[in-house]
């Protein structure tokens, strides 16, 4: 959906200071651009459950982190998400890659449960399902930041 240079430019222009991530096959190609950026820092975590409290610490310390992971990592890190977004009430924004969303015949459970899970968390979600949706990332991020609320972009992915 996005190229590495494209996403680095978008994140940097949004004021994102740190991208806290576990990559997948669609997000992974952004690594070179994010890791070499002079405008933001890529923070690699071993497990998605670390990403949310790490982003919380960055936010409390005055930075503007963004969490990036695949839906599988979202499922894995549910309690950490719950704690940071609902107990600590921090407006952490995330970009979640939805594996196999662009494969109509796919019965991947990681695809089927992505949106229902986020709805259950009552999170403000925005789909980016095709290239024409790309501007919605910027719009949604700015809207959530202005409101001081968490937000999620669901990015449609193909087969891994």
């Amino acid at each position, binding site marked *: 959906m996005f190229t590495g240079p494209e996403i680095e430019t978008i994140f940097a222009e949004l004021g994102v200071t740190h991208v806290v991530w576990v990559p997948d096959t669609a997000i992974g190609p952004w690594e070179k651009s994010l890791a070499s950026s002079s405008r933001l820092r890529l923070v690699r975590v071993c*497990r998605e459950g670390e990403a949310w409290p790490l982003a919380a610490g960055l936010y409390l310390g005055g930075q503007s982190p963004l969490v990036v992971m695949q839906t599988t990592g979202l499922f894995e890190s549910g309690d950490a998400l719950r704690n940071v977004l609902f107990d600590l009430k921090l407006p952490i924004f995330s970009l979640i890659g939805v594996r196999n969303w662009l494969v109509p015949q796919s019965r991947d459970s990681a695809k089927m449960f992505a949106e229902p899970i986020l709805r259950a968390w009552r999170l403000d979600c925005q789909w980016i399902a095709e290239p024409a949706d790309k501007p919605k990332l910027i719009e949604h991020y700015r809207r959530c930041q202005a409101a001081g609320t968490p937000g999620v972009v669901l990015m449609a992915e193909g087969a891994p």
Partner: protein
Amino acid sequence: MQTLNDNSKVMPVVAALQVLADLCHDDQIVVTNQGSARIWPKLRRRSLDLHYNPSTMSGAIPLALGLALSQPQREVLAISGDGSLLMSLGSLVTVIGSDVINLTIVLLDNGLYEVTGGQETPAARSAVDYAGLARAAGFPSAAEFRDLADWQSQAADVLALPGPRFIRLVVSAAPHEYLTSSTPPLAEQLAGLQQALSIKA
């Protein structure tokens, strides 16, 4: 290697934490959770303390790492229980991968899930070498103490070693009266911390 259950020496946890509280600098950020979040506020009250409760198990180290990365001019101290660390041992590798140097992890190892009533962790009957794990992950400084007098006499030196630092303290279970005490309200703490860091929420 001694296990926790071989009647080896353990430190009284309150006294072990008192050593840290006494050595803590005014501009240092301290993140406690689980049992330590109940004890520390009774030992010392500082605007740069965050008693992370309610927390997510294993979240204290990543949260402290985020603070350390965002506040590189300050030292950050994360106090974690062994049950929490066991839920995310990879967080030790995340710390090293981040290149942070201003972070100290103090592991309070009692082999118990303390706040749920004292059930044993999977490591309680084994001999997990947590300091060895930290060394293997790449921590330049990793130490462990079972004896309070040793800890009291060496703590300042260990805390001055190059970071990130890992310190395992083999401790007793927290006295019941501490575990039943509440931590300061989280919203108040977060606002106070950000105010102390001069950050506009």
